[in-house]
């Protein structure tokens, strides 16, 4: 039991919380047809993180968070600028900005010799889920013991705070996010500026991305921004239900992804271990495939069946 508490539980918590923060926000990205903004943001935060790190020389610090948030805002403004004044198609503008900023991050990383010491690009891409350990936990009752809980790894506590922030953000701005996603014109005319709401959404996305980034790596952050929301989108037409389902999907991806990575190969009789972060994203993707195929109303299988029934009538 204590092995589970000390080694598995922290990783599960880390993965699930990272997934949840991104998964909830992802709903609005998907609805705004900005799914790839999650992709872009998780790339552009790299230079921000590196610079934040250069200032403090501490991983998982709030300075890195700040740097990432700044980088995200900078990227969004740059994309807008290129799109507007350069008359460049949005997808292309996004592509130019995020590849360049990521490249800049990589080069700064190597240039300053930070690479290999504390931060490296592979980690940025893959994350480091397995590094989370909670040595003070010995029994289940420790889960209710405040003092022991406080000894949870810093990254988990940080993600917990970020999750709270995300949930408060969504509850507080639910109505505003909804209207500005559905009908920006009406939203603007009622005084809910879609521009500012969009920007604050992106800032939240950046915060979630950075918090999740150190745990699961940048590419998996993208998976968590898109897959749970897309899964939920296949299953419901109600925004609140969609948020709820995407939350469940995120948590279950975090849980089962980790379990599969930690125990799957052993059960199959293999020796090797696999990346837990990768497995979480794979599970998230599989959930989405299942939803796309078998969703009761919008699933491909059901739709085919309905069409056939229709044709035979």
């Amino acid at each position: 039991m204590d092995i589970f508490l000390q080694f598995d539980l922290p990783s599960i918590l880390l993965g699930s919380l990272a997934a949840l923060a991104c998964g909830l926000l992802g709903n609005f990205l998907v609805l705004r047809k900005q799914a790839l903004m999650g992709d872009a943001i998780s790339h552009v935060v790299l230079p921000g993180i590196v610079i934040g790190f250069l200032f403090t020389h501490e991983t998982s610090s709030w300075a890195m968070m700040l740097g990432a948030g700044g980088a995200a805002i900078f990227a969004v403004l740059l994309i807008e600028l290129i799109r507007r004044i350069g008359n460049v198609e949005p997808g292309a503008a996004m592509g130019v900005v995020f590849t360049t900023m990521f490249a800049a991050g990589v080069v700064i990383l190597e240039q300053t010799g930070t690479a290999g010491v504390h931060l490296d690009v592979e980690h940025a891409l893959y994350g480091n889920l397995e590094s989370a350990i909670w040595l003070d936990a010995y029994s289940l009752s420790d889960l209710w013991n405040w003092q022991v809980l406080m000894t949870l790894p810093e990254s988990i506590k940080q993600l917990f705070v970020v999750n709270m922030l995300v949930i408060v953000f969504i509850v507080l701005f639910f109505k505003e996010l909804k209207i500005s996603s559905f009908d920006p014109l009406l939203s603007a005319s009622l005084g809910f500026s879609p521009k500012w709401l969009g920007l604050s959404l992106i800032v939240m996305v950046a915060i979630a991305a950075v918090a999740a980034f150190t745990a699961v790596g940048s590419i998996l952050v993208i998976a968590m921004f898109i897959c749970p929301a897309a899964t939920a989108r296949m299953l419901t037409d109600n925004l609140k239900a969609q948020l709820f389902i995407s939350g469940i999907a995120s948590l279950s991806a975090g849980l089962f992804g980790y379990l599969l990575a930690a125990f799957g190969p052993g059960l199959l009789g293999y020796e090797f271990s696999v990346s837990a972060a990768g497995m979480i994203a794979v599970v998230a993707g599989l959930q989405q495939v299942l939803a796309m195929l078998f969703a009761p109303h919008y699933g491909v299988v059901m739709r085919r069946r309905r069409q056939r029934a229709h044709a035979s009538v």
Partner: protein
Amino acid sequence: MHDRSSSGLHLLHDTDTSKTVSPQDLPFTVQGMTVAYHHKPVLWGVSYSAPKGCLTAIIGPNGAGKSTFLKAALGLIPKLSGDTKVFGAPIEKSLKRIAYVPQRSAVDWDFPATAIDVVLMGLYGQIGWFRWPSRKHRQKAMDCLKSVGMQDFANRQIGQLSGGQQQRVFLARALAQDSEVYLMDEPFAGVDAATEKAIVAVLRQLVADGKTVLVVHHDLETVRDYYSHILLLNGQHVADGPVETTFTAENLQKAYGGRLASTQLDGLSEASSA
């Protein structure tokens, strides 16, 4: 008879009596509106003042800038020159007194929202930041749905409604906004006959309640039946005024040029003499 590039002074006078009215009584006034896409003028110095409490059709050929006129007047797209006043105040400060109904194609109908959700959005301005809609608001939204005959579809996802039903939901949302000026962009586009009737009834009700309504309209045949006033656009202001005096073959010829067959013109002007 105004020249069509004329802009300005006559706006400040009541068209019928030449009696001066104060700007605070003019619900919706646009001065010298010029809009260009890719350095090509789409609207050229359009000035117009909507008659208060009237139902006005904005008509003109394709590419005449009818939708552009509404969007630019509302400040939704950039303009080169011109400004809009709502009851004498700048538009930016009076957005809440205006309800705008965009073209149906302007939104994503696959969005996870039900008919009543969309109508509720019209009330968001009254609800204010951070607060969630209360039961009172739901009741009001339901009433608006009822007035367009859509109460049975309140909990239907909007993508599963027909085009006409979607348009009615949009209309119900505008009603919920409870504004003084209504700007509608082609509400009749692609709707069935029943919906068309329902929309007309709602428009009349709005006018009866003293609202000012401007509608971008395509079908010249129905202008005479539905509206009391028209604004004719063709990149420029061609003419505006009561249907009886303004919806004439001569003005239509000016706005549509060679695009309107002479037989069509005859038909419409015959109706005008009848």
